[in-house]
């Protein structure tokens, strides 16, 4: 699991959903800064996600590291509950070091951000 920060929130996503980590020095307009997770202010790293539309980079404030999380520590949300929380990007919660972290679907995050940006561009 990849543990990362967006704003003051500490989040969790499966390592399989991240193609690689991008340095902040390579940031450009193609990076996704605003997402349902919030806005990355520090722009520490970029999480490169490979989807059907190609690679997308989600700007995050920091990457805490790669953690091995036992399955019993992961608590998936019921589908109806997952659909109602933060636009359907949260899949569950995981207990790490006695803290509960949100387990997010990075593909859904990128998709939601892309959809939102498309709507903005259409409005403008």
């Amino acid at each position, binding site marked *: 699991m990849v543990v990362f920060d967006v704003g003051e929130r500490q989040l969790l996503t499966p*390592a399989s959903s991240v193609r*690689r*980590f991008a*340095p902040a020095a390579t940031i450009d307009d193609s990076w996704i800064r605003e997402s349902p997770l919030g806005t990355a202010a520090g722009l520490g*790293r970029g999480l490169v996600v490979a989807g059907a539309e190609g690679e997308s980079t989600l700007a995050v404030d920091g990457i805490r*590291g*790669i953690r091995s999380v036992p399955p019993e520590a992961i608590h998936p949300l019921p589908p109806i509950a997952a659909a109602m929380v933060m636009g359907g990007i949260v899949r569950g919660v995981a207990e790490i070091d006695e803290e509960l972290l949100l387990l997010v679907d990075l593909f859904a995050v990128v998709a939601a951000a892309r959809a939102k940006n498309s709507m903005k561009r259409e409005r403008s």
Partner: protein
Amino acid sequence: MSDEKSKKKRSAAARTGTKTVTAATATRTATRKAPSKSKGADAELVGALLEALAAGRYEERVDESAVKDPALRHLATLANEVADRATQELEIARERNQSLRAGVNEAVEAIEQVLAGGEITPTTGITEPQPALAPLVSGIDQFFGMLRSAAFELRHVMHQVSVSSSEVLAAATQQESSMAEHASAVHETTATMAELHSAARQIAENAGTVASVAEQTLESARSGESSIEEVLGSLQTMSENAREVHEAMVRLARRVERIGSVVEVIDEIADRSDLLALNAALEGAKAGEAGRGFTIVAAEMRRLAENVLASTKEIKGLIAEVREAADAASQATNRNRDSADVAEKQGQAAIGSMQKILLSVHETHDASQVIHLATQQQRTATEQVVTSMKEVDTVTRQATDGARQAAAAAAELAELAERLSALIKRFNVVG
């Protein structure tokens, strides 16, 4: 003498109250001599008449017819004629005496009128005095004239004396008042001079203190000049040191900048290492159990990279602090150098001012010495003036007493003049 003539004389004697010496009266008179009835009786008659005449009884006569003896009768006739003549003379003398007395009374009355305050006329007013009184009346007239003239003159003189005494009194009073004011003024002046003397003594003491202080100030100013010159030298040294420190700080800042550049490179390398380790860990995680060792190594690399980043971050902070300190030190040294330059210029100005002050202090010192001497002389002079003023005060008091006595004497003189004028006014002189 005939009988008729004798009769006339008898009648005249009767008018004048004469008494005839009869035989009875002759007998009473001649009882002491035991007259005879004859010739002796005639002689007694005649003798009695003569005795009466001798006693001043001129009114007695002899009855010539009673004298028988012709010689004695003739004697009796002569005696009667003598008696008549004496009576006439006596009458004339009495009348003359009365006239004289009247004249004298008139003259005395005139004098009494004058003495009683009546008018002093030029003469007594006695126009036709008895010849015997003429010299007296003339003398009194002259006395009246002299008295009148003297009264005139005296009245005039007394008027002048009264006026003069009034003027003297006014002048004496004025002088007394003036002397009192003068005495008061002298007294105040004496008191003021005493205060002035006290002030002069205080001034002399203060002037002495000022002279001493001026002496000390002169020494202090000389010492201050030396101190300023030393400070000026120190400021020059400080300015040179500040310039050297500034140059050293500039060199330090350059080296810190170079260190910062190196740290930036290290930081970038560490960041790339961290990213590389992250990606390696990611790949290790994707590889599953096969990539576990790879993941562990990547995690360790990332930990090292993070340590380096933390160290570079700390170094950056230190460099920033050093840079800020160097900037602050550089600015401080710049300010110190500028201040030292300004202070050096001010020191130069202070040296110039100090030299002027030294000159002024020197002049002040000389002036204070002169003032000190002058105030001592002034103190001595005021002492003399105070002594003189005390003597003047004493003399003025005596003069005031004299003026007071003179005023009293003038008042007494004026009073005497008034009284004398009143007395003289009693001599009423008209015209």
